[in-house]
């Protein structure tokens, strides 16, 4: 089996949906990240065109005009037409799935150079006509004579036109239990007894770490500044989410969003819906040579995805990491840097507790030994999605890249990126310094 390496990695700045990047198509965000990755390699498009085996990109919103968005991104970014490209969907872990597939293909010897990543515009997820309105249009288009048309028009469902289906709301709702993702976090908060102020403290900590990382320039290595078309008047050089002035007082003022009466999950201790894209290249040893001796950022040592109760999807990282470490034989404490994607404060805190709870392991893993605690300084050292945002299709690649770069910065040996997945799954990927 060949070894897979993470070589270049570049992403767009992330911005809360409905703000700076709201007019930008997901494919354009992806194009930017990929074009900048190519630029950072100091190799020409022509060169990349000759060596790229496949482009694999995650996306959940599936823009109607870019159904296979991976192909659109690849060609727009200047890769030639002969390069194959496909899109993958594993909800919140779509980009991690893209990385997993690239890794698998490198390991299997099916190619030496892959582009993997994700792109998401949560601002541009559409409103849709509901079934009644849709069937009205259907009938209207079938009516041939004027009389028929009038007959259909007589029953125009005006009310239904004003009740569109909101793609993003439906996307964030669990299709098995009809509860919103926020409500799944509420369940974890209640069952693990995670208090509101613990969650707010965690959120504040995320902002503080992210702001510090920005000031130290840690994110400059992964973010390619972006001027927003078509006027280009606004240039983003960093994620716009982290707030230097975030405080417990401000967080405390927010009302629970999902369960107004008994709940503790607020907009402040959840990640915002976000626009952004992230691209990495995953290559074999030969691939590094084909990239004219590029330096690998990290070795990919393993990945795993696991399923669990959709109502407690936030605990996905525990299940996926358990599966991964069972495969690799590593211990949770071996990892110097651990990125757990911050969908909700409650969900990350729930994971931390579950990792060290023998009771939890007895219940879910047939009495296997609990994996133990994660030292706070190893967890999301540059902040997480609560501060910088979670463009669902792209985050999987972002946390892996951020973890790898942080590992190198510290001169550390191992890093882990793991995340929960809507619908009741978890994904984990483990990395090693080169």
């Amino acid at each position, binding site marked *: 089996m060949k070894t897979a390496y993470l070589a270049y990695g570049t992403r767009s700045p992330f911005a809360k949906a409905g703000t700076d990047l709201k007019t930008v198509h997901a494919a*354009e965000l992806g*194009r930017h990240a990929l*074009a*900048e990755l*190519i*630029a*950072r*390699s*100091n*190799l*020409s*498009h*022509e*060169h990349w065109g000759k060596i790229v085996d496949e482009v694999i990109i995650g996306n959940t919103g599936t823009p109607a005009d870019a159904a296979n968005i991976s192909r659109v991104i690849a*060609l*727009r*970014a*200047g890769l030639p037409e002969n390069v194959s490209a496909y899109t993958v969907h594993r909800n919140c872990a779509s980009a991690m799935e893209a990385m997993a597939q690239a890794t698998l293909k490198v390991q299997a010897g099916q190619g030496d150079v892959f582009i993997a990543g994700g792109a998401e515009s949560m601002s541009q997820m559409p409103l849709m006509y509901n079934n009644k309105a849709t069937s009205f249009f259907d009938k209207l288009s079938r009516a041939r004579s004027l009389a028929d048309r009038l007959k259909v028009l007589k029953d125009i469902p005006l009310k239904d036109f004003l009740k569109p289906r909101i793609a993003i709301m439906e996307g964030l709702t669990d299709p098995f239990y009809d509860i919103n993702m926020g409500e799944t976090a509420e369940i974890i908060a209640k069952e693990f007894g995670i208090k509101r102020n613990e969650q707010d403290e965690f959120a504040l900590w995320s902002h503080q770490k992210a702001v510090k990382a920005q000031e130290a320039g840690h994110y400059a290595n992964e973010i390619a*500044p972006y*001027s927003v*078309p*078509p*006027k*280009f*008047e606004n*240039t983003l*050089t960093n994620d716009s989410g982290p707030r230097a002035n975030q405080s417990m007082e401000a967080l405390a003022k927010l009302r629970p969003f999902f369960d107004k009466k008994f709940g503790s999950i607020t907009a402040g201790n959840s990640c915002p819906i976000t626009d952004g894209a992230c691209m990495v290249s995953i290559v074999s040893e030969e691939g590094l040579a084909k990239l004219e001796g590029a330096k690998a950022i990290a070795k990919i040592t393993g990945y795993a995805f696991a399923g669990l109760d959709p109502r407690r999807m936030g605990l996905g990282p525990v299940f996926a990491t358990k599966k991964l470490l069972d495969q690799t034989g590593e211990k949770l404490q071996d990892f110097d840097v651990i990125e757990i994607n911050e969908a909700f404060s409650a969900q990350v805190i729930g994971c931390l507790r579950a990792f060290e709870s023998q009771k939890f392991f007895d219940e879910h893993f047939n009495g296997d030994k609990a994996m133990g605690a994660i030292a706070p300084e190893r967890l999301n050292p540059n902040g997480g999605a609560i501060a910088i945002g979670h463009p669902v299709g792209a985050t999987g690649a972002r946390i892996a890249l951020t973890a790898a770069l942080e590992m190198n910065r510290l001169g550390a040996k191992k890093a882990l990126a793991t995340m929960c997945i809507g619908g009741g799954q978890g994904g984990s990927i483990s990395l090693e310094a080169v």
Partner: protein
Amino acid sequence: METLFKGKAFKLHQDKNIGILEFDLEGEKINKFGEFQLKELGDLCDKIKAGDYKVKALLIRSAKKDSFIVGADINVIQSLADEAEARKASELGQSTFSKLEDLSIPTLVAIHGACMGGGTEMACAAKYRICSDSSRTVIGVPEVKLGFLPGWGGTYRLPKMVGLMNAIDMILSGKSIRPHKAPKMGLVDELVPEALFDAKSVEYTHMLAEGKVPFNKSRKVSLPEKLLTTNFIGKKVFFSKAREQLLSKTKGHYPAPLAALELIRDKSSLKRDAYMKEEARVFAQLWATPVSKHLVSLFFLTEDVKRDPGTTSLDREQLKSLPKFNQMAVLGAGVMGGGIGYQSASKDIYVTLKDIRHEAVAAGKAHAQKLFNKLVERKHMTRSQASQKMSHIRGQVDYTSFGSLDLVIEAVVEDLEIKKKVFAEVETKVSDQCVIATNTSSLRLEDMLPAFKKPERFVGLHFFNPVDKMPLVEVVTHPQISPETVARAVAYVKAIGKTPVVVKDGPGFLVNRLLLPWLNEAGYCLQEGYDIVETDKILKKFGMPMGPFELLDEIGLDVACKVSHILHASLGQRFKPSDGLDRIMEANKKLGEGQTKRLGKKSGLGFYKWENGRRKEADTEAIHKILFPTGVKARTELNPETLIRRLIYPMINETALILKEQIVEKAWQVDVGMIFGTGFPPFRGGLCRYADSVGLKNIESELQRMSTLYGARLKPTEALSAYAQSGGKFYD
């Protein structure tokens, strides 16, 4: 398939009962009509008519790859001896195509690739036409661009085929028609997918042979067209409107479209053969005009430029193996960077805009985006094509990606030290095969050379503003440049659709050095009390696209002022500027907060007032206040002839010196530079052609006379006197 006839131009094959006539000009990649081709075609038609070949229908097509017939052989047209011969040439084509028209068997012309001029006229004489939907297929009659008209029956047949409105539009503008428009206009009977084209051509001809017509031959005529072209009064309105529009466009400088319009208006009621006599007469008259001579020589000039690799030191193989420019960067974004980026990206080169601030990079991108949007608005490009092109442009504030570049163009501020620093820095970031260019307009390349470790890779690429509109780029050489760098720079300029002129390093290079005497002299005229608007009007009437004051506003008064001093310092007394611009700059300095600086178009105020980039009225009074603080000078009476001599002759004076100094080596390079760089009137053939037509002796003595009246700067240069003595012409 049996071959019945094989000539130097045509082959006739037999396929069952149809004939396939193939134009396949010997020894050429394209088909064009000259005397022997026409005779061969005429003889073949005679034989078919006489029944020598047993064919029931005739298919006419080209055997050349992706090219139908590019028209008449311009060499033949240029070498005609006189008007009488021109007339004969026209009559030969007319009678040949009439023979084709008079065949009793059905004829089908199958057009794939460029079909121009005589090719289109031949196609009009057949009974039916089809064309392929290839992007290479275009149909047109561009004769007016060469100063004459379609003289092989085109002005007779085209109106009957596509209607008066379409025909007048095609003939007067010379524009080409894309295949998708052709069937709607009635220019062809069917549009056929490229992949099926050959098979369908043959199939249709077989159907015609059996008496079946595979096409539905009716062109839809719109109501306005009907009203304007089918009755006496409507036609009268139509022709007078068309004439009016034409004159406002050509300002009376181009006789051909007008003559074509009048011919069609006055003679189209004649029978075919009588009309043809009139067409031949007008063709010959136009052929003999100096305008046509100039346009034809300009045509050959541009052909020469297309072929010229810019250097004689490399052979064909070496030229072929030179690396192409796929990735480039422009340093200094802004409007110039954005313009170069747009131009290059639109030809699929990947462009990095680099500046020191993100805002500047973004401004460059915004400019490029605006230009692409315009193409979309005008339907020259679809929105997704435009986004694909725009995707070729990226921006940054560091040297990321420089290792992959083939070309870096510097367009930072005109400051020698800053430029040198930039070059030294860039050279450490790029690969050995990367060409580094400067877009300087006023500095010398030789002063920048010390900054380079590898000076042989350094070249000047002087774009003109606005980049998307100005066709010329000066490729500036210096003693240490390698021939490879020259050839690659020339190839790049051509690849992005611009016209290169290779010039030697020197103050103002070619175009600015020639423009400045003109602008300077206009400044002196202004101080003598000449009127701004009148002056501009007279020069526009001469054929310049803009008068000197409008041009100064376009350039920017601050820029013009700076450049005029730089050239004065390096070229001496001839370039001594009037102090008009200095005074305006002084006045600018005295302005308070919030007052508009007088900088030309960019600030909205110059010699004229500008609103949203549009020229409004002249700001004469305010200008006079600045120039004549003691009160306005008496207005000098303007004699247009004198003014033109005073403004144009100094450029000719300088041209002699430029040729002597070998800034460029040939007079034609001056003409290419002036026509494409300044819009010097093409119908005058360029500055040198114009000078030759006046006679350098006359110009020398006039300059002598003017120098005593207006100042020593106008004195004829020794170089000009030398030319005046030896033959009196720039061209051999």
